[in-house]
């Protein structure tokens, strides 16, 4: 009997959801691979100073109306948290393992990024949920989030361009387009500077992660780390590999392939926490890799896990700097 009562409710939510979904086309941003120096265009026509309510299109192409400036915000991934702070917002709730910015650490933890706890989200009584358009896009997570009855926007990044798009979106949400525009411009500038410094060297590099079985995966331009290399004009021999393996944007890399590529640089990212050995110390110890250019020249370099894998976002500036430093040897 109780069930019957919930039916119309469910119907309403579904109907509204589908209406909203039908109301907006895909917000495409197919420029990530060939970003121009003036890439801040993705912020769209300046509708600055638009008083609330404001209607925004999030990175999943959903149209969401923000009725007033969000004050009580829950952000469900490191990227989402950084986006909020970049746009001048603050959060009261966050996913686990958020280390940046410092101010965000005090916010209440509401489950993990991959398993947000809906009850705790509700308990914080937020007026906005910022979910991750990469992590929470699958229906098992997206639908329950949308059903909570709280405005939810999806913003995440797996590329340089998505970082800019996310900032533009958050600028509208928090009515701080000026701030985010400035930030975007500085990100673009950092990219251009780094490209100038690195591009002239004409180097090749792969970025590797490994799973628990020490199977190696190489970043392709479809991943965040791969896009960072790509943006700087670094040749990535793994780019042409077909997708393989469980990690989106990465391809399973057979050891023979790495020997065949023999890149100038090998960047490694180690997902396992500290006591586990870094991949950058493991790779040179693997016998077949001992003769590689990058190994003999000590160019196997560990990259920061957060900057390149866990928390893509406005700190992409630091990611550009890290690569530049490694390549130019400064």
């Amino acid at each position: 009997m109780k069930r019957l009562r919930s039916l119309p409710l469910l119907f309403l939510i579904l109907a509204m959801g589908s209406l909203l979904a039908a109301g907006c086309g895909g917000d495409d941003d197919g420029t990530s691979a060939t970003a121009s120096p003036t890439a801040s265009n993705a912020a769209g026509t300046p509708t600055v100073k638009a008083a609330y309510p404001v209607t925004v299109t999030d990175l999943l192409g959903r149209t969401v109306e923000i009725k007033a400036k969000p004050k009580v915000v829950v952000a469900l991934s490191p990227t989402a948290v950084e986006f909020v702070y970049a746009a001048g917002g603050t959060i009261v709730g966050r996913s686990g393992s958020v280390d940046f910015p410092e101010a965000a650490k005090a916010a209440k933890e509401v489950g993990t990024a991959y398993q947000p706890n809906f009850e705790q989200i509700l308990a914080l009584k937020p007026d906005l949920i910022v979910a991750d358009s990469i992590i929470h896009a699958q229906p098992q997570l997206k639908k329950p989030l949308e059903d909570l009855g709280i405005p939810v926007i999806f913003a995440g990044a797996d590329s340089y361009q998505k970082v800019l798009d996310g900032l533009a979106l958050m600028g509208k949400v928090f009515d701080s387009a000026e701030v985010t525009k400035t930030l975007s411009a500085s990100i673009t500038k950092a990219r251009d500077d780094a490209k100038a410094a690195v591009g002239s060297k004409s180097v090749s590099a792969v970025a590797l992660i490994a799973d628990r079985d020490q199977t190696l995966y190489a970043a392709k331009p479809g991943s965040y780390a791969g896009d960072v290399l790509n943006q700087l004009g670094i040749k990535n021999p793994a780019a042409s590999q077909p997708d393989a393996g469980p990690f989106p944007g990465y391809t399973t890399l057979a050891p023979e392939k790495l020997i065949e590529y023999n890149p100038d640089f090998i960047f490694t990212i180690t997902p396992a926490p500290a006591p586990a050995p870094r991949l950058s110390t493991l790779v040179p110890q693997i016998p077949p890799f001992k003769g590689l250019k990058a190994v003999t020249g000590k160019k196997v370099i560990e990259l920061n896990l957060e900057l390149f894998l866990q928390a893509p976002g406005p700190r992409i500036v630091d990611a550009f700097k890290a690569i530049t430093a490694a390549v130019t040897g400064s």
Partner: protein
Amino acid sequence: MAAPQFAEPAALVRRGGMRGRPRRAVILGLAVLTLGVLSFLSLMYGAVHLSPGEVLSGLTSDSDLFARNVVWKIRYPRLIDGMLVGAALAVSGSLLQGVTRNPLADPTILGITAAAGLASAVVIVIDPQVPQWGIAMSCVGGGLFGAGVLFFIAWRGAVSPVRLALAGVALSAFFGALIVALLSSSRTFLQTSLGFLAGGLYGSEWRDFDAAVPYIVPGLLVAFLLSGRLNALALGDDVAAGLGVLTDRTRLAILAVCGVLTAAAVSIAGLVGFVGLVCPHLARFTVGSDNRYLVPVSALYGALLVTAADLVARLVIAPSEIPMGIFTAAVGAPFLLYLVKFRG
């Protein structure tokens, strides 16, 4: 009114040869009571604790929006989903144990769970945006396929328990390997795959309920209707046929019901193990082996076990959670060892 020739209540007590009906009634009453208490606790406790008043208000009105959201949108559907999963798996297990005359039979051990899980993994990998009813439907297809394979292996019931269990283990391993192969090559399923493989109710909601109910409710009803025939079948095929049971047709129907029930449970909670193994045995301790009682009591115990396991799963490391299936296995595996050691 003529004096009755038989003392009716006494005769009825003797009817099923039930030793100690009062004891049985007490245990069943306790089980129902425990389920009620656990249900209410499930609505109260989680990452956020609610008072009983808030739970009631959340169940019945919109006055407290927070309680309404937590109770009505998150906990209540999850509770109901869990009960359905438990009942479906336990009934499926009791039917399988009866139809195979094998105390070790269980949808997981015989590979039906894995077959349904494989179908679910396939559609999710093909289309990550597939609606829940599509997942449920393909699960049922997979479950029926698994049950069908089992039917042809166990045809005419002439298969020994050992061979049937071996065949089940083989099927289970085969489908399980395909699932892992699929998951490890998929790019959409990685992070939810743990909850799927171990069996859990994270994020379970009305959508899952809506998609599974059209299979589980008729499945349970048909299971109860078939339980009398299962009684006859338990005596051996020739005796059952002599009693007027169409043995092959009945076996096919029972296995199909097992396939549907298991698959619907998998569509909600993934690969939950041991519920179908443990609950029928617990039910047998309580009400004996008359399937007309055993099947519904198994359903009750299944609902109870899953509700308890899910409550623990949500509380142990809140606000994160452990897949509920780990706790059903934690209860089930020692029980299986007990069976092996003491009940042969």
